[in-house]
């Protein structure tokens, strides 16, 4: 089981990061002093899980995905859906950097003392959270199309 965890760790952490940002969104929409600690906690979880997704995803990409001739990349390129790599993986691996930085600034915004009383800071926090959600779901969607590319390659077309 642990061997398989290595293959999907970045997906699991990515989903946890998305769930964290959904939690942050709900807390922000009901923002008051009473839920501030929970909001801070889940903004940290979001950032930590996205960073873990980046680290495990990077490791998996380098050690498994891109291995010459036998990696998933070459299975996709040999199949009938090469765009699974040429577009979806290429876009995903680079747009992820924007998501990573977005998740890093979220706790900084949430920890501002004026968050509860200043609507413009709340709006900024909501904006960053929604962008994390959009990019996060985008990464998951791209990931499923990359997996589809591997499947098409293994099926021989």
């Amino acid at each position, binding site marked *: 089981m642990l061997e398989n965890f290595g293959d999907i760790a970045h997906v699991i952490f990515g989903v946890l990061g998305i769930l964290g940002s959904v939690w942050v969104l709900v807390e922000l929409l009901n923002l008051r002093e009473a839920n501030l600690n929970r909001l801070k906690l889940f903004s940290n979880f979001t950032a930590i899980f996205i960073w873990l997704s*980046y680290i495990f995803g*990077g490791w998996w*990409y*380098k050690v498994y995905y*891109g291995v010459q001739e036998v990696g998933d990349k070459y299975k996709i390129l040999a199949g009938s859906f090469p*765009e699974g790599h*040429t*577009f979806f993986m*290429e*876009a995903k*691996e*680079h*747009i992820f*950097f*924007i998501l*990573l*930085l*977005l998740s*890093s*600034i979220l706790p*900084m*915004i949430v*920890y*501002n*003392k*004026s968050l509860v009383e*200043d609507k*413009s*800071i709340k*709006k*900024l926090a909501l*904006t*960053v959270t929604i*962008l994390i959600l959009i*990019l996060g779901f985008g990464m998951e969607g791209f990931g499923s199309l990359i997996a589809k590319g591997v499947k098409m390659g293994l099926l021989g077309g």
Partner: protein
Amino acid sequence: MENSKLNIMTISFILSFAISSIFTSLLVIVKETNEGLKEWMANLTGHHWVTHGVFTIILFLILGFVFSKTSISKKLSTEKLTNVVIWSTIIGSLLISGFIILHII
């Protein structure tokens, strides 16, 4: 309009986020159109994508701390910073996906 509600570190790192996002997008275009640079980046860490990430993170950290030592950050309102976040995310993502569609496929 001076921003007194957001702390200086937050403003600085939001500005740094915007610049780093555009930087990382432009680096995709530059490295994919320049084999020498891509190879140099690959030789640095073993893979060009790993180097790309390291450059982006280092730039984000350095700019964040540099901006926090200047007064430029104080001049931006929270509303302006919100727009900066939205547009840098959109432009960065479009630059990457647009370039890949036009030049790789």
